[in-house]
C-alpha cells in the first residue's frame, strides 16, 4: 500500500509534466490524421526513380558515417597518444611531473567536452555555419565521435599490461616506438573491434542527423513526413531498417573475424 502511494506521488507530477494524455491519441481528429497517414503506408512506394533516389541517399548516409569516422580517427588518435599516461616517461620512476600531468588532464577534459555535446546539437550548429548538406553531418560525427573514441582508446590502453611498454621506455625507446611495439600489439584487436562498433553507431546516427538538415536518408524521410507522404515514409523506413540491420550484421561479422 505504501509503495503504491509513493509511486503515485512520484508519478503524478511526471504525468502532468509530460502532458501524458493517451486519450488524445483516440480523438477523432488525431485518429483521422493517423489513419490517413498509416493507410498511405501500404503499399510502400516502389517506383524506379524514387528507389534510385533512396539508394543514393543510403549511400550518402554510409558515406557521411565513414567520412565522419575518418576525421574522428584523425582527431582521436593524436589526442589519445597525448593523454595516455602509460606513455609517460617522467612517470617511470614515480610521480609524473607537473607539466605533463596538466597537459594530459587538459586533453582529457577536451575529450569530455567533445563527447558531452550530442552529435545532433553539433549538427544544428554546423548547419548554421556551413548551410544544409552533408558537410554539417560529417563534422558533427567527427567531433562527437573523436571524443568517444579518444576516451575509450585511452581506457583500453591504460588497462593493458604496461610491462613491455615500461621496459621499452626505460631502455631509451621513444614514446611512439614504445606505443608501436609495446602497447599496440596487445590491444590492436580490441581497438579495431571498438572502432568497427562505433562505425556501426555512426551509420545509425548519420541517418538521424538528416532530420536537422545534414543530408542522407533522414533528410528525405523528414521531407516526406512533413508532406504526409505515407508511402514514401514506409519505403524509407523499411530501407532504413535494412541498412541498420546490414550494418549490425557486417560489424558483428568483422568483429568476429578480427578478434
Amino acid at each position: 500500500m505504501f509503495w503504491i502511494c509513493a509511486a503515485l506521488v512520484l508519478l503524478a507530477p511526471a504525468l502532468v509534466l509530460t502532458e501524458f494524455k493517451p486519450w488524445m491519441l483516440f480523438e477523432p481528429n488525431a485518429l483521422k490524421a493517423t489513419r490517413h497517414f498509416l493507410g498511405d503506408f501500404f503499399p510502400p512506394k516502389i517506383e524506379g526513380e524514387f528507389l534510385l533516389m533512396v539508394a543514393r541517399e543510403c549511400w550518402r548516409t554510409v558515406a557521411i558515417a565513414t567520412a565522419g569516422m575518418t576525421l574522428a580517427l584523425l582527431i582521436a588518435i593524436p589526442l589519445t597518444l597525448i593523454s595516455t599516461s602509460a606513455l609517460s616517461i617522467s612517470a617511470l620512476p614515480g610521480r609524473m611531473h607537473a607539466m605533463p600531468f596538466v597537459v594530459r588532464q587538459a586533453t582529457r577534459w577536451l575529450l569530455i567536452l567533445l563527447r558531452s555535446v550530442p552529435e545532433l546539437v553539433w549538427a544544428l550548429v554546423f548547419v548554421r555555419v556551413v548551410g544544409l548538406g552533408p558537410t554539417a553531418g560529417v563534422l558533427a560525427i567527427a567531433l562527437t565521435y573523436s571524443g568517444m573514441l579518444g576516451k575509450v582508446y585511452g581506457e583500453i590502453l591504460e588497462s593493458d599490461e604496461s610491462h613491455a611498454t615500461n621496459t621499452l621506455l626505460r631502455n631509451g625507446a621513444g614514446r611512439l616506438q614504445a606505443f608501436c611495439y609495446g602497447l599496440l600489439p596487445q590491444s590492436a584487436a580490441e581497438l579495431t573491434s571498438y572502432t568497427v562498433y562505433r562505425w556501426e553507431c555512426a551509420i545509425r546516427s548519420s541517418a538521424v542527423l538528416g532530420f536537422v538538415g545534414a543530408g542522407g536518408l533522414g533528410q528525405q524521410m523528414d521531407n516526406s513526413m512533413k508532406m504526409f507522404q505515407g508511402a514514401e515514409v514506409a519505403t524509407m523506413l523499411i530501407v532504413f531498417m535494412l541498412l541498420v540491420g546490414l550494418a549490425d550484421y557486417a560489424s558483428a561479422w568483422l568483429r568476429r573475424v578480427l578478434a
Partner: protein
Amino acid sequence: MSGASAKPPVTAANEIYRLPPKIFDARCAACWFMLALAALTVASFWTLDLQWAKFLSADAARRMGRFLGELLSPAANPAFLWKLTVASVETIAMSALGTLLAAIAGLALALPASRTHAADPARWRIPTRLILNGLRSIPELVWAALLIIAAGLGPFAGTLALALHTTGVLGRLFAEAIENAPPGPAFALRVQGVPAGRVFLYSTLAQILPQLLSYTLYRWENNIRAAAILGVVGGGGLGAMLAFHMGLFHMNETSTVLMAMMLLVALVDFTSYLSRRLLQR
C-alpha cells in the same frame, strides 16, 4: 647443468632462414580488408559534395567566430532560468516515464519472446522477436517524428517515442535474461505441477529481478540523454527550447540551453559513476 646434458641440444629460433612476409599477398585477408577500407573511405569523401572551401573560408570563420562570441554571453534573467528549469525537469520526467512504460511493455513482450525450458514450444518466440527488432532498429528521433502526427507536438510524443524504442531494447535484453536464468528452481516447481505463470513469478522472476533492474536503470541513463535532444523534431523538453531559440537566432538563450544540456548530461554521468562505485563496494 648435469641434467641438461642428457636432453637434445636446443635448436636456435632463427635456424631456418625466412624472408619477411610480403607487403601484399593475394591470400592475405587483412590486405584485402585494408584495401576495401581505403576504397570505402576515398569513395565516401569523393561522392559527398563536402563544402570544405566554404567551411574553411574567411566568411565561415567569421560566422563561426561571431557564433562562438555570442555563445559566450549566456542569458541569465530569472524568468528564463525558471523556464529552463521546468524544461530540464520535463526532460527527466519524459525519460523516466518512457523508461517505466518500456520496462513494463518490455517484460510483457519478453515472456512470449523467450523459451523457458526445452519442452516449451515457444510458438510466439520468432514473431515477438521480429517485433522487438523492429521497435529497436528505429531510433527514438524517428519514432518521435512519426508520433507527432498521432500525438501532436510536445512531450507526450517524445515520451511515447522513448517508450517504443526502449521497449525493443529492453524486451530483447529481458528475454535473454529469462532464457539464461538458472533452470533448477523453475524445473523443481514445474515437476510439482505448478502452472507456468506461477513458475515464472516465483522462480525465474525472483532470480533475474536484479538484472532487469540494472538494465532498466542503464537504459534510463541513456534515455535522459536522448530525451534532451528529442525536442529538436518537436518532442518537448530541453531540445524544444534549443530548436526554438536557435531558429530565432536568440544566441544568448541558445547558449544557456546548451549549457543546461551539458550540465544535465554531466550530472547523469556523474550520478551513474558514483552509484556504480557505491554499489561495487
